[in-house]
């Protein structure tokens, strides 16, 4: 008779293991809170208004910047210039901006770059800016590397984009309050310096007419912090060999058995493989190669992992359903209804991601939210994913509820058994519930941490000098938690090799007596995942 390790583990060993895992968890949290900086940082850059004196405006070799040799002639937009046309005006953003009299450059550890535009529009009572007016932006992005001549910028990408400009005003203010416009997302920060040139063309009579008296253009660039990437990649580097080792150990243990692996063991293996994929420290490659698809790949890796985790929970609950007729080997086909909810959600999110970040591989300025069709399409996929998640959780809750109902039903028959066996069964039920509790705890902690993070970010103020980086702690904490959770699952749900007959050396004398009782049960030869199911069957036979 074989069970899983969790059933054969003594209470003390379980406690030691749990304490160890808890310590690992706390370490992960503290690393994020005390070592890592905030995950990302934003810098605001005020656009320099350059005057383009050339006659050919479509020349992409001509760049405008405000620092270094060949910098442009800047003008002040507050005064009106009657002699200048809109095609002559270029907003130049040179990033990163220098600090402490030093020229800074982007490091590849900073991973990605997101640009957000903000318009500062002066209020005039006679020319009001309507909400949701469309602004057309001619954006060109160039790059330069250390060692290049100061006036040599190479074209990275260019595009003419439309964006919605949402401005409103409270009675008699001086400036409109305009919403930020997401402009670009670079999946890789391969080069050292970047330069963005923005023009607001008026090619047709109704283009850029309702944008009012634009005074300033701000660009906020968000990059991941190098320190956070380092801590993150180090965590992955530590977790990756661990998960590989545990997976190898788990698979060897299953192969040493006489029987074929059951569904739950296969699911555990798949879950482990998904975690492997998530833990693979691919970020090292970005330090040497230009890999703009890293953002998309990161999304896919997380998606695969969560899909596997959700499917595992369903099947875990299903396999412990205790509704008998388990003569046949259970297979994935039994769960197709439940799993289709997971698949549906994942596929919709994947399509949405491909439409947004997939297209951004070709054009970093692309946004699906600009056109009405795009917005509807994106919303459709997001709502579909939301519905699937709702359906999934309904299924899961129903199944868990059924498991608990079955357990409490069977428990009523417990007092009729002899005391040794009863203690053993109670222990099994306790441990099963313990793991359910652990899952719930992990899920609840993730959700609570996430909500707290949102609240904390919403009330963000710089002068509250907090030493602990909450957001980083949340990320490393949650990441570590799910890793440890899966490590624990793989270890505790691996088949036990402890033969009941040869457990003389164990300190637990109860096991010995139980083993004798168990030997008389005829159903033991069938393959089973846990002795809980065997116990149910035995009760049926009784």
């Amino acid at each position, binding site marked *: 008779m074989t069970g899983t390790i969790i059933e054969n583990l003594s209470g003390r060993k379980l406690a030691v293991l749990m304490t160890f895992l808890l310590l690992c968890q706390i370490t992960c949290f503290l690393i994020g809170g005390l070592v890592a900086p905030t995950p990302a*940082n934003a810098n605001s850059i005020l656009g320099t208004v350059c005057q383009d004196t050339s006659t050919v405006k479509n020349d992409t070799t001509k760049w405008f910047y*405000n620092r270094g040799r060949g910098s442009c002639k800047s003008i002040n937009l507050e005064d009106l210039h009657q002699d200048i*046309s809109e095609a002559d005006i270029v907003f130049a953003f040179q990033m990163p901006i220098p*600090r402490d009299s030093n020229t800074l450059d982007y490091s590849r550890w900073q991973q990605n770059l997101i640009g957000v535009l*903000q318009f500062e529009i002066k209020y*005039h009572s006679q020319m009001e800016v309507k909400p949701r007016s469309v602004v057309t932006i001619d954006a060109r992005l160039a790059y330069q590397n250390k060692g290049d001549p100061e006036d040599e910028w190479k074209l990275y990408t260019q595009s003419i984009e439309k964006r919605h400009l949402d401005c409103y005003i409270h009675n008699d203010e001086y400036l409109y309050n305009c919403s930020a416009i997401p402009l670009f997302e670079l999946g890789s920060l391969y080069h050292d310096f970047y330069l963005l040139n923005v023009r607001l063309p008026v090619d047709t009579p109704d283009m850029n007419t309702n944008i009012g008296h634009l005074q300033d253009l701000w660009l906020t660039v968000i990059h991941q912090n190098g320190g956070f990437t380092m801590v993150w990649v180090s965590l992955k580097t530590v977790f990756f060999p661990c998960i590989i080792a545990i997976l190898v150990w788990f698979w060897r243990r299953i192969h040493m058995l006489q029987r074929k692996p059951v569904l739950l063991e296969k699911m555990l293996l798949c879950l482990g493989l998904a975690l492997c994929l998530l833990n693979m420290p691919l970020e090292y490659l970005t330090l040497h190669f230009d890999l703009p698809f890293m953002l998309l790949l990161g999304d896919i890796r997380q998606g695969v992992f969560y899909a596997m985790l959700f499917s595992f929970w369903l099947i875990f609950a299903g396999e412990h359903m205790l509704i008998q007729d388990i003569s046949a080997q259970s297979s994935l086909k039994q769960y197709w209804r439940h799993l289709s909810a997971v698949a549906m959600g994942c596929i919709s999110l994947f399509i949405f991601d491909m439409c947004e970040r997939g297209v951004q591989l070709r054009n970093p300025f692309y946004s699906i939210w600009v056109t009405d069709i795009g917005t509807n399409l994106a919303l459709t996929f997001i709502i579909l994913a939301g519905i699937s998640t709702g359906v999934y959780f309904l299924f899961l809750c129903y199944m868990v509820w059924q498991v608990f109902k079955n357990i409490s039903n069977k428990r009523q028959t417990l007092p009729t058994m002899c005391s040794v066996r009863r203690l053993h069964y109670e222990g099994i039920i306790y441990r099963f519930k313990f793991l359910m509790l652990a899952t719930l705890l992990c899920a609840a902690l993730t959700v609570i941490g996430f909500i707290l993070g949102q609240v904390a970010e919403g009330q*963000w103020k710089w002068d509250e000098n907090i030493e602990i980086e909450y957001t980083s702690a949340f990320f490393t904490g949650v990441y570590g938690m799910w890793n440890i959770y899966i490590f624990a699952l793989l270890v505790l749900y691996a088949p036990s090799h402890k033969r009941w007959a040869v457990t003389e050396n164990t300190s637990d004398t109860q096991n010995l007596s139980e083993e004798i009782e168990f030997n008389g049960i005829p159903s033991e030869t069938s393959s089973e995942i846990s002795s809980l199911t065997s116990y149910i069957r035995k009760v049926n036979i009784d």
Partner: protein
Amino acid sequence: MASSSVFRFLILLAALVWIVATEDGRRRREPWTNGSWFTMGLVEFEKWSNQTELFSDKSRMCSRIRGLTPGQRRVCRRHKDHMPAVAVGVKNGITECQHQFRDRRWNCTVTTDDTVFGPLTFIASRETAFTHAITAAGVSLSVSRACRDGRLASCGCSRAARPRNLHNEWVWGGCGDNLEYGYKFTEGFVDIRERERKVKRGSREQGRQLMNRHNNEAGRRAVIKKSRVTCKCHGVSGSCSLITCWQQLASLREIGDYLRDKYDGATEVKVSRRGKLRLSNPHYSLPTAQDLVYLEDSPNYCVKNSSLGSLGTTGRVCNRTSAGIDGCALLCCGRGYNTKRTTVRERCGCKFHWCCHVRCNTCVKTTEIYTCK
């Protein structure tokens, strides 16, 4: 022998008297606690900034700016390139002050001498409190803005005063917000005036120093208070699992509106013997760091009094229909008003064309202008 020694003594005495007299005169001309550094707002830095050698180490720009104390000169020498931004900040502050007080009896009039606001700066009144707050706010805002342009290369990076290895710090944790830098620089540059001179504890001068520091702080805090936090979600698939927020600078108009409310609710304080500011009336509520405080009552701005710096309201334009402070009854202090009918041509129905053209119609309007007697 005796006569020569008496003569020597007389000369010595005369010299002493002269020294004391000139010392007195100097002090009257440039006391420590007046707002004379506001002259920076009147300096035409645009003309200076064409000279590239202006910010070089050898440039004597800082000694050319009048009204700076020795401590401020030190800061100036260390951050020469910040000075145009400071000047713009002071200038914007003064303009904003004039906008906020355009309808009041005191309308933030600027004199041409070194004191900028005239003899009014010697009175620790509400109005002085406001001028300190608005200029501090203007400088703080202007420095923050100049940093974000990227042309002011010496702006700080992190919370630490000067990181040991800037490049590593930047890669590790990025650079902090410039709003913070503007706040800190202004604190260092403006408040140093009130700190560098030791005065008798509990004296009027110390009270003035404390008041100025409090009001400067209120101005700087107003910049932060009115800045808007904008956030961007950029987590998995663009979800809000990861949010980054930043401070968006407010316009000086919003800050001015906020500070004028603070001016209306300013608290009168007195200086205690221990050298702390105390409420003059214990029934008032305690002022916070965002509130303005003053020590002395304002002079009567209704009548012209050149020794106090009051110009009087004679000749000011008032609003006949308003019952508020800009109404003729209040603004003219009950002296009545003159009515004048004029025809004005003004632009109306304007349409703005990006980037640089405004097309307007001209309207002819007949209006009545009321001026105080």
